[in-house]
């Protein structure tokens, strides 16, 4: 793999950039692999990357039905934070956040991780108490967060209307090292690194069936034929229900559309990420200048990558109330992604009823921020066959026992 740097650009500029090599190869599948990861989203690619990097397992195929990064990884609002309430969530999201800090250097690919700070507004007394609880939990989890005053909120984000009138800002939970990243670059950077390790990323190849013998997985049927494997990782987000059905079990998952939109680009006016959960809206400004805005989820099962428009309206009226200056900006584009919502809204990183078949899903509306941590933990699970401490709580049997990992209790939503 040729290294990327300023010097490489200068060198290439002289020959009109004709010398760049492919960021990743696009090979045909081999007959079999040591491990197959289904789904070349962020989580699948990170899983493969850490299989190689942490465990030396590189005879790996990543199978993707469309184009890599084209799932939710390529369509999310890119908020990265780790100020979660429950210990197991906080652990894996903080692991992920810390890996994001050095991701550009690790991958030699600028993923533009931008730790500009994330604030979650408290606009009711109940929310204040909820965020104070999270702040106390975070203090014990080793996560730097702070409950800040309305005045500090205003200083950090001058375009915010903190004086209501309906929901004056009473404070905010502030994570200064949270932020955003360039979502596509995360997928591309991992893909390039995986490919460089000799892994095969096989795009436009849909998994149609899972084969097993004696309760142990043997391979997958795909639109490019059968591909054998010793281990299978299913990392397909919204399509997890389909994959699980192929493997013969059911998941506590519903696939619903989550929407987002961007405004037309404007000059920088907002240097933090703001989430306003009372009114249901969140917004940040991308490096290109668009306001990136997250909408709501439909309450019905949906695989169309588009949602119902009234959620967009609800989000925008909440944001006009919170940021009156956006009223005269224009919505440029809106889209949807199919998110995988579990029974407790927390993910699964788990063994399954099928031997050597592992699942990673359920990241729902908030898994972009988890990508490196999730890949790290999933690689450990696949390599060792047993979960490590990061993954342990996220097993799929917790639903039977009632041991949920419920984040909604912290007055927050997941993004």
């Amino acid at each position, binding site marked *: 793999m040729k290294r990327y740097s300023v010097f490489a650009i200068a060198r290439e*500029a002289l020959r*009109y950039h004709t010398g760049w090599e492919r960021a990743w190869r696009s090979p045909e599948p081999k007959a079999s692999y040591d491990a197959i990861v289904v789904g070349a989203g962020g989580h699948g690619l990170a899983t493969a990357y850490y299989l190689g990097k942490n465990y030396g397992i590189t005879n790996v195929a990543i199978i993707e039905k469309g184009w890599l990064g*084209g799932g939710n990884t390529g369509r999310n609002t890119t908020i990265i934070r780790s100020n979660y309430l429950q210990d197991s969530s906080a652990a894996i999201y903080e692991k992920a956040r810390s890996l994001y800090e050095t991701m550009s*250097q690790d991958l030699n690919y600028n993923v*533009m991780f931008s730790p500009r700070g994330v604030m979650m507004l408290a606009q009711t007394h109940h929310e204040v108490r909820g965020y104070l609880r999270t702040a106390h939990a975070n203090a014990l989890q080793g996560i730097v967060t*702070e409950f800040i005053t309305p005045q500090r909120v205003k200083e950090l984000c001058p375009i915010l209307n903190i004086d209501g009138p309906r929901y004056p800002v009473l404070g905010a939970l502030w994570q200064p090292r949270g932020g955003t990243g360039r979502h596509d670059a995360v997928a591309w950077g991992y893909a390039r690194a995986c490919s460089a390790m000799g892994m095969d990323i096989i795009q436009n190849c849909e998994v149609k069936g899972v084969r097993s013998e004696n309760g142990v997985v043997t391979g997958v049927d795909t639109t490019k034929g059968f591909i054998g494997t010793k281990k299978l990782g299913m990392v397909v987000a919204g399509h997890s229900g389909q994959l699980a059905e192929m493997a013969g079990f059911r998941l506590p998952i519903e696939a619903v559309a989550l929407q987002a939109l961007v405004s037309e680009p404007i000059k920088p006016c907002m240097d933090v990420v703001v989430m306003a959960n009372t009114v249901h809206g969140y917004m940040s400004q991308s490096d*290109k200048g668009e306001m990136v805005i997250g909408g709501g989820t439909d309450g019905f099962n949906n695989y169309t990558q588009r949602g119902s428009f009234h959620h967009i309206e609800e989000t925008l009226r909440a944001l006009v109330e919170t940021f009156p*200056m956006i009223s005269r900006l224009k919505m440029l584009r809106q889209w949807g992604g199919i998110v995988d919502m579990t029974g407790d809204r927390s993910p699964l990183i788990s063994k399954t009823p099928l031997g050597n078949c592992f699942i990673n899903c359920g990241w729902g509306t908030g898994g972009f921020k988890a990508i490196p941590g999730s890949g790290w933990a999933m690689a450990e699970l696949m390599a060792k066959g047993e979960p490590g401490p990061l993954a342990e709580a996220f097993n799929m049997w917790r639903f039977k026992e009632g041991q949920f990992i419920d984040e909604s209790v912290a007055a927050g939503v997941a993004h």
Partner: protein
Amino acid sequence: MSTRLAKGGRLIDRTAAVEFTFNGKRMKGFAGDSLAAGLLANDQMLVGRSFKYHRPRGIVASGPEEPNALVNLGREARLEPNQRTTTTELFDGLEATSQNHWPSLEFDVGVINNYAARFMPAGFYYKTFIHPRPFWKHVFEPIIRRAAGLGKAPTQGDADRYEHAYAFCDVLVVGAGVAGLLAAKAAADTGARVILLEQAPVLGGRAPVDDAQVQGKPVEAWLSAMEADLAARDNVTVRLRTCAAGVYDHGYVLADERVADHTPGDGRPKHRLWRIRTAKVITATGAIERPLSFAGNDIPGVMLAGAVRDFAVNFAVSPGDRTVVVTNNDSAYQTALVLKAAGLEVPAILDARDVVTGALPEAARKAGIRVLTGHAIASVKGGKRVTGVSVCLQAGEGAVTEEIACEAVAMSGGWSPVVHLYSHCGGKLNWDNGISAFVPDPMRPPLNHDGSAMVECVGAANGDLDLSGTAPAIPPVWVMPQGAPIKLRLKMWLDYQNDVKVSDVQLAAREGYMSVEHTKRYTTLGMATDQGKLSNINGLAILADALGSEIPQVGTTTFRPPYTPVTIGALAGESRGDIFQPLRRTPMHEAHERAGAYFEPVGLWRRPYTFPRAGETHEQAVHREVVNTRTNVGLLDASTLGKIVVKGPDAGRFLDMLYTGVMSTLPVGKCRYGLMCNEQGFLSDDGVVARIDEDTWLCHTTSSGADRIHGWMEDWLQCEWWDWQVFTANVTEQYAQVAVVGPNARKLLETLGGMDVSKETLPFMQWADGTLGGFPCRVYRISFSGELSYEIAVPASHGAAFWAACTQAGKAFGAMPYGTEGLHVLRAEKGFIMIGDETDGTVIPQDLGLDWAISKKKADYLGKRGQERSYLASPDRWKLVGFETLDGSVVPDGAYIIADGTNANGQRNTQGRVTSTYYSPTLKRGIAMGLLKHGPTRMGDVVEFNTVQGGTVKARVRDTMFYDKDGEKQNV
């Protein structure tokens, strides 16, 4: 220079002059002009700067496809960035400023990016700015951000108002060109209800500019006849200035009407967002002309041929005295003819095709215009405006055959049908080799709710580029000249706004970003504010070529709403200010406002948090209210509490399923506290249930629980136990409810008079109907404070008067209103739990020591099975206890109780957390409740709560009843 022609201009009114400013410069135009036409008429060729390289940008198109000519419009509370000049109607006093430059449009420092362009190809930022690590956040990213973005961010709220409107029809026709008008008429003839939308302020589409005749009639005559015909029908509604922004599932179409953009401040809504439901959508949205990719095709003065024609015919504006036409199809010849007819020079038509024989080319030749077939532009000369072109053979590598001086270039690379709306909901496209464009595939349309085709396309939008019905062949010409070397390709713009060039797309392909979606995201092709209306097809043709593939195999990127950007204010609609959200008011709301209440939101209600007096902090006010309630009497507006009547032969049985306790055995006239859980077993609501008569119960819920619990009841009754005879009614709002609380409560009621509220007649946990002070009421003897307490329900229409009467009657006894925070403190002093504080969706009643409210005998209740699961039944769960800090201080809200050591992930172990913590003005010390592992067995232990500063607060474990343990105060 670009200028106003002496004659013509079908859309302008030369008798109505209009003044406007651009960058402070005063300019003149006419009513009917677009802002773009006004700018061109005043020789303003340079109107902006591109996104990445800050290159000079001029007007290139005449409609919503315009990528360049965007301005900041208006100022202050009416400032609108990125306003498209080609679709902005000129009005007197319009103020526009150009964007994305510093210090000025003419001299822009950012243009150094242009000179460094070679070092900034597509995706360069992914390859650099990696080291040293902190530099990205602190140096590189801020620079990039400042250079990016287009218009200025407004700093104020919006001075204008917006609204929504619903409309319904059988057939919605989008686009009022010839095709749309005919479709609307045809649909109307069948008796269907028709709505016809046109984004422009006038009907007609391209025909008045492009066609002499329609259906054998002169075009203008045909149009006015058609307009009159449609206007006369009452089943047709025509909406001008209304852009269909998006087509959504089940025939839902969003359309944005620009009601008062051209008359700002006249009091009308600026925009109206239409939400249209239609059985069928017909899109007659026309076609958009494509640019040609030649070097320097982005220099101001290079325009689409159709746009040049539009400006000349519609507004009598010409971009230059000498215009070179370059094309691969016949339509551009019309431009040459129009210009020639207007007395302007057309030094040459460069046609990439080798053989050109159509009627239009013949007419051009006849008019004496030089037609060079097989020719192309090698490069355009000029910086901030065109000064000439170098000509070459299309077939070669760009060897210049001659140079032609000119002020403008009119280009046409063919036409792309506007298939956006067809595609929004999944309609699929076919590649049409004849016209080198994607056209709708009628076999794979977007589907309606019933599975029928939801959208149909007609006219140019369907690929029928000619009214005659015989589509002229348009051969593909994707680069000019065909064998252009890299130096030329570096200067061939695809996406003018985002500065994406032919070389960038080729680089993306070379680097393996082979999916069209990868190329889009890597190069940002088509991601600008025009969403690639001009660039997408050209870009993917280049990509297909670079991949050695075919265009249909490469495919398009996804078309997404909106078709043109929609103002966010319009999407928010009426929901702002006072009607941002419904504000629920109790009948006493105004009285509380008059009393100076500080409110807090509780769901959509607003409840008084406290009633501060002059000079008091909120905290002091709360303490005063608590003490007064304990010593005299307090009044609480409890109207928001949910009240649900449950009635029927099976009502008792039903409530026994709903509550953890037994309600069927509650005697008539009595009250009982109950808990409701969800099927998981988690506590979801609580409240007092009153038995009204043999088959009627009244269930009180929490304020935010009323609608939720009513819905929950109906859910079970309708979907699970539909054969049970139970009716429910949510009567929450029928009653105003006042809690009269404190030692003087009875005296207050006796002063009102009318019924016996003595201990004997109305003991604790009973209710009675009667009148008080002449108000019909129902009085419940229940207490959430531990005091002697009555909750009195009166009809809501008497609520305000009853509150006033209580206040009046209470004067002698020291009555004061108290708010929700006082309520919280009072209940915490008594160890009563609060839904939302002690519970958070993960807590079961058993955790809270509420086992007494759970029937052991019942075979089933909602949540029972859930609570039997191993984790919920575990003896290790955290359970509710009270805490007293050793130093009397208040435990911080949200604190955790630390335990020894750390877990496998290095996090500090915990063993519990606080759920309610207050300063008790009664006990004059901090009191707290919380959940603690094995809590009830640990009375007297000292535990440590963490603080966010890093220290701890020590507290002793005790029971939760801090005040009046024996309940002597409430049972008097």
